[in-house]
């Protein structure tokens, strides 16, 4: 995994190349982000890690037998957590915002519904032969002093 730049205080980026890298590299990237951002709560970390894991897993699973590059970006602002990916894989199917969870016995198909449940906004575009995902989650507003 290659860091794209020197991280700023709000903007963290990396590139995942798979194979050989896996979704574990996305988790390791996030661990580095949390080390620098102790202000991000446990609940926020759980949501961001789950969203990012689902996004990167989809990229890898949708492109078997080929190498993909997936740029990963996490922005931490006082009001929002923004997760973005940009990948070189095939065009992903258009997401269905109102898709239900699959039936209980299904072993697949819960990734995107989970993302929608954890996010406030989900946007997918196919642009210049890349899938661009932008997922936003509002941060809890601290109570007034």
């Amino acid at each position, binding site marked *: 995994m290659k860091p794209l730049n020197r991280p700023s205080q709000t903007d963290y980026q990396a590139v995942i190349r798979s194979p050989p890298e896996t979704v574990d590299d996305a988790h390791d990237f996030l661990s580095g982000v949390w080390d620098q951002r102790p202000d991000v709560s*446990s609940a926020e970390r759980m949501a961001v890690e789950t969203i990012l894991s*689902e996004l990167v*897993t989809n990229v890898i699973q949708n492109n078997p037998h080929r190498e993909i590059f997936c740029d990963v970006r996490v922005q931490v602002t006082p009001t929002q957590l923004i997760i973005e990916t940009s990948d070189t894989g095939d065009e992903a199917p258009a997401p269905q915002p109102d898709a239900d969870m699959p039936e209980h016995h299904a072993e697949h198909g*819960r990734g995107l519904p*989970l993302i929608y449940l954890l996010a406030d906004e989900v946007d997918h575009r196919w642009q210049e032969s890349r899938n661009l995902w932008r997922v936003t989650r509002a941060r809890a507003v601290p109570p007034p002093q």
Partner: protein
Amino acid sequence: MSYPIDELDPDVGVIRVDGRLNMVTAGQLKDTVIEAVAAGRQRLVIDLTKATFMDSSGLGALIGALKTARAAGGDLRIAGANEQVLMVLQLSNMDRILRPYETPESAFAD
């Protein structure tokens, strides 16, 4: 590679998952359960005490493992899930199918 299996009592095997349960390790869990069922273990507990994270791939592996155990006439339960694992189970409504128990010892106490 398989996860280690301990014997809780002669009827109950405990599969101890360590680290992340995601697309990298989902197959490992399913294979471990298939091997355990083939070896005659009908009641299995997936001990998630040391599992740090689970996504939908990991959840899919748990569902596959449950199906494997039930197809053989047995059952499979989960224990020791952390907050993130519980969140995924609840959001997906799978906590009703894979009811989380606090400890492996309590999973088949009923």
